[in-house]
């Protein structure tokens, strides 16, 4: 392996990990509030199709990304209304949201299959892009990747160091206690769900506008589910979500690179690598049982009844 190849692998690792990172950060915040939304895949697909259609018709990538996020938010509000107002089961509602989003995006996008758009171009940061090895990986990406770095920082700070983050965690740990001391449980959970929707929409838009600028049915191909698993294996820690997403990206890329280099390892084994590597690393990190029990939001998946 020469330097160029390593540079390219690292570059592709971040690119591949970015949609996962964005969705997983959204889901992390959502789960921190005690809400388990399994509708990531459906929200992503709606974000992808809406972003693509808007960009195709308007010619504006910015508008596409914004409306992709709006589409994700609207989808998440459907989930919010059903689980919060009607106290429906979160798991069932989330699954239904995925099925609904898959079907609706296919329906909405049927006229837009096979149409090309100009995708998002990378923005090179002068001087830094030319750094050896890490230059392209960190400073030769597109704007959404840079945004994902900022989002990670923001979510990390929000959860660990901010007062609203503390409220979020309190609501996720014990909504009744939070309610008793006057914290706005419903509002907090709604905002967390909306943030999750916006992130899923953004990630979907990233797929259809930047990663592979096209629309095709079911183009997320399970990335929403991987992000969901990442949050769990990252034991609800933002920094581990980042690590997991990039690790998954790295392993997915290596699976392809090794085949191209002619390694005589079964591609089926290599295809398992992303899942295996991610799970193994994150399980080792969260192996301290008492600690990981403490980090999982206590009331995750439980509806909250009392009106606050």
């Amino acid at each position, binding site marked *: 392996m020469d330097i160029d190849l390593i540079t390219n692998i690292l570059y592709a690792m971040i690119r591949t990990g970015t949609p996962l990172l964005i969705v997983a950060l959204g889901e992390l915040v959502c789960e921190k509030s005690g809400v388990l939304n399994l509708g990531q895949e459906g929200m992503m697909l709606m974000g992808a199709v809406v972003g693509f259609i808007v960009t195709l018709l308007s010619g504006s990538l910015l508008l596409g990304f914004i409306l992709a996020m709006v589409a994700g938010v609207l989808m998440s509000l459907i989930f919010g209304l059903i689980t919060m107002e009607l106290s429906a089961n979160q798991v069932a509602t989330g699954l239904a949201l995925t*099925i609904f989003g*898959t*079907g609706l995006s296919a329906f909405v996008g049927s006229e837009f299959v096979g149409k090309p758009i100009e995708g998002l171009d990378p923005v090179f940061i002068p001087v830094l892009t030319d750094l050896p090895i890490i230059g392209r990986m960190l400073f030769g990406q597109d704007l959404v990747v840079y945004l994902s770095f900022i989002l990670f920082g923001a979510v990390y700070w929000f959860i660990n160091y901010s007062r609203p983050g503390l409220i979020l965690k309190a609501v996720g740990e014990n909504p009744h206690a939070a309610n008793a001391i006057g914290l706005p449980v419903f509002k907090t959970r709604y905002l967390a769900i909306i943030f999750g929707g916006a992130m899923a929409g953004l990630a979907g838009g990233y797929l259809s506008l930047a990663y592979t600028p096209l629309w*095709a049915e079911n*183009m997320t191909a399970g990335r929403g589910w991987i992000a969901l698993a990442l949050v769990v294996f990252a034991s609800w820690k933002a920094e581990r979500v980042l690590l997991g997403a990039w690790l998954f990206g790295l392993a*997915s890329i290596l699976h392809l690179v090794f085949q191209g280099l002619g390694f005589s390892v079964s591609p089926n084994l290599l*295809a398992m690598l992303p899942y295996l590597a991610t799970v193994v690393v994150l399980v080792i990190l969260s192996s301290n049982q008492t600690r990981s029990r403490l980090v999982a939001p206590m009331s995750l998946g439980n509806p909250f009844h009392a009106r606050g």
Partner: protein
Amino acid sequence: MKRRQFNKLVTGLAAGVCISALSTFSAQAADPFKVGFVYVGPVGDHGWSYQHDQGRKSVEAEFGDKVQTTYVENVAEGADAQRVIYNLAKTGHDLIFTTSFGFMNPTLKVAKQFPDVVFEHATGYKTAKNMGTYISTTFEGRYVAGYVASQVTKSNKIGYIASFPIPEVIRDINAVQLALNEYNPEAELKIIWVNSWFDPGKEADAANAMMDQGVDVILQHTDSPAAMQAAERRGAYAVGQASDMSSFGPNAHLLSVVDEWGPHYINTVKAVMDGTWKPKANVEGMKEGAIVIPGFNKSIPAEVVTHAEVLIAGIKDGSVYPFAGPIKNKAGEVVVAEGERMSYEELEKMNWYVEGISSDIPK
């Protein structure tokens, strides 16, 4: 009937099939000849099912009011398929096309229940009194694509994005390698298996990984145009699969190997209407218009295009056959002797690489 539709909806949802699975399309006409189509994927995949639907549309264009077509998309292979096919037969369809390998046994079962309805199943091997099969010989197009790739590559590295190691895919990889052996033995074929028919992100990743390793022409046996786009961005060439992908890479697009099901569908509808239809295994390729190369990239040297057209003409008249002997396997043993040709039945079972491919078939 209402209730049955409701049940169908519920089971459909439970099976995780998206809602559009149950959308059907019907054109209005007075007492027309009814033709049904069953698709495994969405018509919006811009690949396999999309091309079958283009074929359905050409039937409508050809016969107008005389024919009414219906399609059911996103039908899971297995028991669900049998019910869908049964419903089509029950609702007065005279001819039903089932377009995925896994529909073979369900089609056969329904065919026995409805002896007056004609069934045709794509890519399978079972026939009955009222059931025929049809398949197209994509390897003919791949051989031509392999020739063009061998001539335009500068790095002598050609990439192949492969889906699953089944005979059809292995056969087509071999067709490309045979073209390389013939026209540019220096060229190396790098094969990357992505374990999916359709995952745009992964296909683009595979294309990029290849280009990082110096590949400058990419072929694919997966369905999305993502690799074409990736090649366009980085100034490489790519070959389109199943449908014309030129719009995704105006500069990168060397050519597309397009499945045209229309001619077969039109001929079959005509034969059934005239009462001349007979159950048989239809194997159709460039000669029958089932495999088409709609156009070549302008940047391909004229003599290369000319020779590609000679090859196409040769394939059509039978003088060129990619799997004509002598063919050696990877180990260098002669498998097909000089003067012999592999039959279609042999090609259907092909599970070995020809000489020149350095990697192994995944197990």
